[in-house]
C-alpha cells in the first residue's frame, strides 16, 4: 500500500512536470544570420562584434540607426549570428574552410543550443536546439549557402568538404548544418556573382567609392570567385539538390545620392551592387537584362516591349529547390540594415505575398509566423 501511494504521488509529480514542460517547449523561431562580403566576422570581442554589427551598420547616412533585427524579430523569436572572415585582406573564396567550413561548424553549434557567443541586445534570444531554424543570408552569404547546401548529401561532389590554403580537402559538417533547417532566405544574394566583381577584376570599375564600400579594390580570390562568369559560381560546384529550400528576395533600388550612378554600370535592374538576375538565382548569366518583375524583354532603344523572352519564375532558376519570394525596392545597403521600413514592391510570378509592403526583414517575420 505504501509503495502504491508513493508511486501515485510520483506519478502526479511526473504528470505535472510533463505538462509544464510541454507548455515551455513551444517551438520558437531561430534565425541564423549569415552576413555578406567584407566583414571581419571571425572576430568576436565584448566591444567588437563585426558580424553582429553588419546587420545594423550603414554605409549611407540615410539608414543610420536602422537595425535589421528590429524588423525581423517578434517577441518570441531567437537569432544566432554567424561570423566568418569575408574580408578582402584575407581573400577567402566561398569554398574555403575559413568561410564555408566555419559557417557550417557555427550553424551546428547553434542548432545544438550552444548559443552564438555574441552579446544580444535582446534578452532571451539565444537559440534552443528545438527551435524552428531558418537561415537569413545576405550578399556573399547566399553564395555560401548554395555551395554548402548543395554539398550536403552523399552524392554531391564536395560532400561535407571545404578547402584549406594548400588546396587540401577539409571535412565540414554541411549535412548537420542543414539538417532540419526549414528554409534559407537570401537577400540581395550574389548567387550568380556580381558584375561589380567583374569590373574590379577586369579593370573597368569606375566608382571607387562604392567599390571600397562593398568590395576591395583588388581582384583577390574572394572577389575573383564572386564574378558572374559561370566558372566561378557555386551552382556549378554542387550536386543535384540543396539540403533546404531557398527563397530569394531581390532588391532593385539604386544607392542614395551620387553613388546611385553605380546602377548604370550593371546590366538589368540591380540593388546598386548585385544584378537582380543574380539575386533571384535565375538560370543563365547574371547579366540578363532583368526587370523588377523578374522578366527579360526585347528592347528598342532601351524600352522593353512585347512578351517576356525569359521569366525568372520558379521554373527559371539555376539551382534546384530555389524559389522566388519577392522583388523589393531596396538597395544593397538597406537590405541588411532594414534602412527602408516600408519599401514598394512589384508583384512577381510565384512570389509570396506574406509581408507585402514590409522590408526584407519584415517579410521574413510575417512569413514565418
Amino acid at each position, binding site marked *: 500500500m505504501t509503495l502504491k501511494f508513493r508511486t501515485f504521488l510520483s*506519478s502526479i509529480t511526473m504528470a505535472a512536470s510533463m505538462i509544464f514542460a510541454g*507548455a515551455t517547449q513551444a517551438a520558437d523561431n531561430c534565425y541564423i544570420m549569415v552576413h555578406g562580403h567584407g566583414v571581419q566576422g571571425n572576430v568576436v570581442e565584448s566591444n567588437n562584434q563585426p558580424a553582429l554589427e553588419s546587420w545594423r551598420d550603414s554605409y549611407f547616412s540615410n539608414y543610420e540607426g536602422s537595425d535589421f533585427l528590429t524588423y525581423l524579430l517578434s517577441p518570441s523569436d531567437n537569432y544566432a549570428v554567424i561570423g566568418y572572415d569575408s574580408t578582402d585582406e584575407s581573400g577567402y573564396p566561398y569554398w574555403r574552410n575559413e568561410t564555408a567550413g566555419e559557417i557550417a561548424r557555427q550553424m551546428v553549434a547553434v542548432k545544438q543550443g550552444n548559443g552564438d*557567443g555574441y552579446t544580444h541586445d535582446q534578452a532571451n534570444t539565444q537559440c534552443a536546439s528545438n527551435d524552428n531554424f531558418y537561415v537569413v543570408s545576405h550578399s556573399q552569404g547566399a553564395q555560401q549557402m548554395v555551395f554548402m547546401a548543395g554539398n550536403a548529401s552523399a552524392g554531391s561532389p564536395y*560532400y561535407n568538404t571545404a*578547402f584549406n590554403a594548400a588546396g587540401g580537402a577539409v571535412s565540414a559538417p554541411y549535412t548537420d548544418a542543414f539538417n532540419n533547417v526549414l528554409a534559407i532566405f537570401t537577400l540581395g544574394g550574389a548567387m550568380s556573382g556580381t558584375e561589380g566583381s567583374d569590373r574590379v577584376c577586369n579593370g573597368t570599375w569606375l566608382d571607387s567609392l562604392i567599390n571600397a564600400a562593398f568590395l576591395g579594390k583588388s581582384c583577390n580570390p574572394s572577389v575573383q570567385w564572386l564574378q558572374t562568369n559561370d566558372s566561378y559560381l557555386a551552382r556549378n560546384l554542387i550536386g543535384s539538390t540543396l539540403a533546404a529550400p531557398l527563397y530569394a528576395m531581390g532588391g532593385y533600388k539604386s544607392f542614395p545620392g551620387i553613388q546611385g550612378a553605380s546602377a548604370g554600370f550593371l546590366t538589368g535592374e540591380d540593388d546598386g551592387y548585385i544584378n537582380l538576375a543574380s539575386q533571384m538565382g535565375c538560370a543563365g548569366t547574371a547579366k540578363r537584362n532583368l526587370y523588377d518583375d523578374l522578366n527579360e524583354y526585347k*528592347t528598342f532603344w532601351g524600352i522593353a516591349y512585347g512578351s517576356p523572352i525569359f521569366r525568372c519564375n520558379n521554373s527559371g532558376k539555376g539551382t534546384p529547390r530555389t524559389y522566388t519570394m519577392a522583388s523589393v525596392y531596396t538597395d544593397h545597403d538597406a537590405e541588411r540594415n532594414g534602412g527602408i521600413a516600408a519599401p514598394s514592391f512589384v508583384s512577381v510570378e510565384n512570389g509570396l505575398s506574406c509581408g507585402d509592403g514590409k522590408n526584407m526583414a519584415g517579410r521574413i517575420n*510575417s512569413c514565418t509566423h
Partner: protein
Amino acid sequence: MSSKYWLLVPTGLVLGLVLAYASNTPTLVSSSDGINEQAVTTPLMVSQQHSVKTEVKATKVKPAPQANSPLLTSPLSPIERIRQISDKNGLQQALVNEHDKFKRYPPQNHPIEEAKQDPISQRYAVDERSTQNEDKTFGITIWSDEKFYLANGTVTVFAFLQDANGQKMDGAFSAQLLNTQHQKIMDLNLKDEDNDQVYQASIELTSVKEINGQAGIYKILVENSQHQIKDALTFTLSKPDISLTGNYHDNITGDGNLLIEAEVEVTSQNRFYVQASLYSVTNVPIGITEFAGNLAPGKHWVPLTYAGLMIQDAQETGPYVLEQVSVAKVTMPMQRAPLLKPDYQTESYGLDEFSNSPYEP
C-alpha cells in the same frame, strides 16, 4: 496563454497521469537504451569559435505561444510543426508542399520537368554575355563555343558590337588570354572573316606553351576601345582523368528502381563526380541522378540509380535513354569533361515494374 490551450491542461494531466503511472509500475520498468543514450550525448563535430559570454543589456519577457503557433515541439520535426498550423500563410504552405515533393525521391534524384531545366544542360550551356557602355548607347556581346575543354581542344571566342536597338554593327575588338592567375599569356586578334559582323578568334590550346596543359580557369578579356566597353569570358581547361568506355547495362533493382551501370576508365586516383539525365525515347525528360566517390586507376562500373517513383511520376514507359552524362574530377575548380551524349537505350520496361513508394513516406 490562449484559452484554447488551457483546455489542454486537464486532458494532458489525465494523459500524463496515466503514462506516468504506467511508467512507474515495476513490471514496466526497463533499463535505458544504451544506443539511444549514446546518440543523445555524443556531440557532433563542432568547433566553438566564440568564447564571449553572453550578456543581457535589456530585459524582455517572452509571451506565451499564440493560438496559431506550432506547439509541443519535442515529438515533432520542424516541418511537422509547420504542417500542424491550421491557418498557414503562403510560405508555410509552400514549405510543407515543397517538403512533401522533395521527400518523394532520394537526394541524388531530382525530377526534370522541362528540358531547359536539365541541370546538365544548364551547366554546359554557353552564356552570351552582353555589356553596355556607360550611356547605354552601344554594347558588346561575347561568348565561347564551349565552357570546358581538354588539353588538346580548340577554344573559339566570338564578339559583336550592337547599338541600343540590338542591331549588329561593324566594330574592332582587341582581346587578351589570361592565365589562372589573371596574368596575360597572349594577345588575340578577332576577325570578321565571313562579313556577318561577328568577330572571332581561335586558340589551339596545345600550341600555347604557357598553358602547357595546366588545368584551371582561363579568362579572355575582350574590349571595344572605340566605345570603351570591356567584358571577359572564362573557360575551364580540364584534365578529368575519367572517361566513359561505352559499356552499359541496366536492370530494375529489387526495390523497384532503375539501375543503369556505366563503365568508366580512370587514369589517376581521385574523387570523381558523375551526373546523368534520363529521358524517354520520345525525348521527354524524366530526372537526374548522380554518383560521387573515390576511384582508383582502372575500369569501374558506376551505378546510376533512378527512383521508380520518379519514373512513375513522369508517366513515361520504357525503354529509356541515358541522354546526357557529365563526368568530372573533383578538384577546385571542378574539372568537367566536355558534355557526353552516350545515346544508350535501356531495356523496355513497363511503368508497373517500378516502385511507387516514396523515399520517405
